[in-house]
């Protein structure tokens, strides 16, 4: 098995996730795309873990899973809050950050 199998898979997933973040307008879908990106990073970490034979990558993969869970929790809470206030979660309509 080549390391590159996994690394390239990670790269492809990452880019699909980036595409999703840019293209999607629905906030929930954007969050899903971010999950794709995080997963691709995990695959990379575990591939390197296996390559070096230590467990460092595994540790960080676990940490990333935990952070991702926190991120989804807060993210969806924000989406709900926005939906309650604005009746929409289309990112186009959310332009309060306009400078």
């Amino acid at each position, binding site marked *: 098995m080549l390391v590159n199998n996994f690394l390239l898979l990670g790269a492809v997933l990452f880019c699909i996730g980036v595409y999703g973040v840019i293209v999607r*307008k629905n906030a929930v879908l954007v969050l899903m795309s971010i999950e794709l990106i995080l997963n691709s990073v995990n695959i990379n970490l575990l591939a390197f873990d296996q390559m070096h034979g230590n467990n460092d990558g595994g540790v960080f993969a676990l940490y990333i899973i935990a952070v991702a869970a926190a991120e989804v929790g807060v993210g969806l809470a924000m989406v709900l809050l926005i939906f309650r206030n604005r009746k929409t979660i289309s990112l186009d309509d959310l*332009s309060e950050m*306009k400078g």
Partner: protein
Amino acid sequence: MFASETESAIHESAGWFLEHAWLIPLIPAIAFFLIIFFGKRCPKGGSEIALASMGASLVIAAGAAYQWIDRVGASAEGEAGGLLRGFFGAGRVAEGEGEGEAAGEVVHHLEPVIRGQRWFSIGDLEVGIGSHIDGLAIMMLLLVAFISTLVLLYSTEYVRGDRRYTHFFASITLFSAGMLTMVLAPNMAQFILGWEIMGLCSFLLIGHWWEELPNAKAALKAFFTVRTGDMGLLVGTGMLLAMFGTLDIGGEHGINTQAAAFVGDHKTLALAAIALFIAAIGKSGQFPLHTWLPDAMAGPTPVSSLLHSSTMVVAGVFLVARLYPVFQVGLDITVAGNHFNLIAVIGGITILIAAGLAFVQNDIKKVLAYSTVSQLGYMMMGLGVGAWVPAVFHIFTHAFFKCCLFLCAGSVAHTGSHHSFDMKKDMGGLRKKMPITFWTWIVSTAALCGVPFFSGFFSKDEIIDSAHGNHYTVFFIVGLVGAFLTTAYMTRATYLTFFGKARGGAAHFVNEHEDHLHEPAHDEGHAEAADDHGAQAHDDHGHDDHHAPITHGKPLPFAPDDSPWQITVPLIILGTLAVLSGYLNAAPFHIEKMHEWLHSSIGVTLPEAPVFEWVNALPSILLVAAGFAVSLYLSKAVFGDAPSPLKGLTRRNSLLGAGHKFLVNKYYLDALYENVIVRGIAYPISRAAYWTNQNILDGIVNGVGKSGKRTGELVYKYIDQGLVDGVVNGSGATATGAGGALQPVQSGKVNLYGALLFGAAAVGALVLVLVNS
């Protein structure tokens, strides 16, 4: 095995206070939590906890100082002949013998007492927490604990009745704990911890009266400006970690030892030093990040006093002093033939710029703020010209007289001028009414100006003298000019505050007959009025731009009188020390105690300080006298009663007027940051991105060729957008209506931000790949 023996040898020699120095920051830190949780239930709202904890810290710090001095004495005796000023002393008996130190390597006279235990570890890197005690740390500990205690005592009266009384004491206690943590830090991690605690607390304290918008803004400004510099601290620490593989500051393999012995190309070390110096610039209000410091006056006066004397702002100077080998080697300080270096240049510029600004301030606290900036410039310049001991000594003396000046200003506002800090509108003629405040102010001013035999003279003159002795001629002149300016603006401030005719709300009382005030009934009434006043109106201090209609609602015109004992006692103590503290290192009398106690902290070999001669001090003394005379003459002419052709000169003479305006606008630095940097950099980028979005992307669509109708739409859009763009480019700021449509790339469109982010990352990666292949 040897190491353990060494350690035990030192272990025996260090006394209880030195061993337990970690208690000094810990006690106020615990007190912070006690105040937060139980403060409101205490009879005095938590201030007694704050005072008690700080007093305890002070006692331990004093004990530690005593034992340290003892240790220095013991080490000197061990050296058979007591070569205190030599730079090649032997260390303690236990150290150095077995190791055979190479010639030219720095030899410490006296090992610092380093204690600690593991705090956390990441991978192989272990980071400890504990205490690193040497002369520098001892001096700062004592200073911080002492000043904090006095300021807390002062605050019990000054902020009495404030609605966030308890929180005030909690923040100020934690603030001191942060500074003490930083001063004790044996490694950079703890240093950063203390540094950040201070940053947070300064934000809380400056914004203490946050209901007023200017105060909240000042707090934010202080926080963000300092934060800009803080990036440098992290980057610099990271670089030091990468270079030396440790975060420890002192010790055998610490950063200082390794940096001092550094050989070869020190480009990286120079970069690390510059990064760290940026942090020092931010924290110590050096040019060009000094703009937050005067705004920080929005906080209550005790806070300003604490911030500007012994804590916050000297943290940057302390950073440079603490890691001096890094700066000295990295920036080539005191290398022969090197007449400039970054630290000295920044320090020198700061001295002059801040002194210039102090002339046009009407707010007494702002005069003092700029004066602080200017004095910090002296400290930095001192470090930059290799005058380590004088610079650190200047921290010491400056803390006393500057703290005293601020507390005097607070005292004047508290009982003299109805909570206004405006010298032109609400002060004047207070000399006779507030004798204690007046005399402590005069003494501290004399110390600040460097009048001979006051403390400032001994430290400041030593810095100027060293600049001369170390062949930094430019900075010698800068120092002299600074001395002249300092005297001049302080004379102006003194004249406006205490002399001449009274103005504002207090005028009625001051200008009347004196004995009128000593009727007992009146005194009582005044006390009552003052109390009510304190209870109701304290949240109105300190906002400088809003003093015009001061109606505190209470029987307002109360008679100016000296403040209660909680205020005057600190003033008297500090005023006394403003004179006496200088005699710890008075070169004219060959007293070099400070040098003796401190110089083992330097870590590198510096040129011998020049021998003091009155002839060398003459120029600065003369300039101080000249500054006093000129300024007094001008102040009398401009602000006095007698008609004078000089009055309103800035209005009549266009050149002077322009200069005045330039100074009033603070050299337009704030405008530069706001308009040029924020708008100039952020907006064009967003505009360019928008243009790309509208023109290029649409252009692609256009080129791909959709249906005719769609093309039409896009052309319309293109023209429309182009037109609007043209309007903006043409009429710039005026097109406010178009403005909304025009900053769209701060459009708030998250997707676009994402695309820009990832696109930029991809392009950056591509560039790296192309460059490296």
